């Protein structure tokens, strides 16, 4: 095979230097605060990726995601496809030689991605999780048909047709609950949800600042304040 003669001119040869200024030094501390895990302990050995049944679908392997978190590539991580291919099966958590619960880091990243609005259009998982939460808020317990309906509306209404054979199969076997089962403590569950928002809202700035100061990056503390103002 003749080697294609390079036609790129000097100017077009892509220079690949990581732009240091895009690094968000507050990002690792933010992930640590939510997940309770230290991303700094990772030695990049790849055991998590090697244990992950979904690594082959991911644009970045779990190991590389950890390195991107540490480096502070917040946008790239939160916009990545990889985190939505984590099914929380805990294989990585059990085997990580540094004892990092990688699954909880991934959960933290997904929650940050949703809150930051970085949602990959081609991926239905975010829509499914948010529909799940909406049904939960509605009844306190998840009613499967309502969930499927809400999820279909948020993604592709035609999906309901695809689910029909399954639904009929369940009905025929008496495994379809027609009416939702409202949790007796529904009001309390809703108050709980608000309380969670308040707890995270009130102390998160403080905790993040403490976490950041312990992480020793003053400009990250300033970034946290800017971030806080933006979110409110």
């Amino acid at each position, binding site marked *: 095979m003749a080697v294609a003669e390079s036609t790129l001119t000097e100017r077009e040869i892509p220079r690949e230097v990581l732009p240091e200024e895009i690094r968000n030094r507050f990002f690792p501390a933010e992930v640590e605060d939510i997940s309770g895990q230290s991303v700094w302990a990772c030695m990049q050995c790849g055991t998590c990726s090697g244990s992950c049944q979904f690594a082959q679908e991911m644009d970045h392997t779990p190991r590389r995601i950890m390195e991107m978190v540490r480096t502070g590539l917040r946008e790239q991580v939160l916009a990545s496809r990889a985190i939505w291919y984590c099914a929380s099966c805990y294989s990585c958590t059990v085997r990580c030689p540094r004892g990092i619960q990688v*699954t909880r880091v991934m959960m933290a990243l997904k929650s940050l991605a949703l809150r930051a609005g970085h949602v990959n259009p081609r991926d239905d998982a975010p829509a499914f999780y948010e529909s799940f939460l909406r049904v939960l808020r509605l009844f306190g317990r998840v009613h499967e048909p309502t969930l499927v309906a809400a999820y279909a509306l948020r993604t592709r209404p035609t999906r309901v047709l695809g689910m029909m054979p399954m639904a009929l199969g369940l009905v025929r076997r008496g495994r379809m609950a027609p009416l939702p089962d409202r949790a007796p403590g529904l009001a309390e569950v809703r108050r709980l949800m608000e309380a*969670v928002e308040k707890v995270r809202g009130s102390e998160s700035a403080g905790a993040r600042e403490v976490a950041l100061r312990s992480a020793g990056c003053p400009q990250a503390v300033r970034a946290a304040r800017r971030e806080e103002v933006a979110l409110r």
Partner: protein
Amino acid sequence: MSRLRYAFYPGCTAHASARDYTRSTYATFRALGIELEEVPGWSCCGSTAVSNVDPLLGMALCARNLALAESTGLDLAVTCNACYANLAPTLEAYREERRVRDRLQRVLDAVDRHLEGEVEVRHGVHILTRDLGLDRVEEGVRRPLDGVKAVPYYGCLLSRPRNPYDDPENPTSLDELLATLGVEVLPFERKTKCCGGSFMNTKEEVALRLTFEILEEARERGAHLIVCACPLCQLNLDAYRAKLRARYGTYHDTPVLYFTQVVGLALGLDRRDLAIGQSFVPADRVLGLR
């Protein structure tokens, strides 16, 4: 004989798509002298979804359920792997991680609930194999299932992230339980591999690949039956055989039952009480019931 009593956490699918699991659980446990009292006012545990939207909310829902169970003074029995993998790690984090405890206490205070951390969470498999004990199960066996070849399917969330009895890499509780019933338990490499869970709704081709690999190994091993312990795994393995044939060209006719159904059969309980026949792939021929 001290009677075993537990607060029972049914989970959202208990009275819906997993009605057969709940029915067989009550029947089998009652036959073994184990009492289950549903936790009053329980709510959804967040399954594999809520923690991805907000990990703190995921733990808060579980903390409330744990507090409800603790107030009954009984240990908490769970039969769904996903619920178990939310409730047990939340309890452990509540006991061991100061930051988690502080936040959850503030959330529980807001709904005037209190969690001491005394309650223990037990999966149904371990209630039978450890709390009750295999010998007591063996005493109850009336119709040993000799000749039935089965593979135990733990799924990813029974032995992981951690449970007090099984080695995460090579759990044995389900194997031992089935062996006690006279079942010929075949080695099963994928017994803790993930079945895709909620990906069946959001990334179907991935979940189908995983369920196919599991069903394919079961077929190669010559298993008559797959025994599982989670409604999510059961549905994924049982309900999509047509789609699997469309995609991979082979139809797997290996039925998937819950361990409570199989134990119930060995105890001589009636097929209807164990809701056998409500699975998509019929199990009667394999169990010699027709």
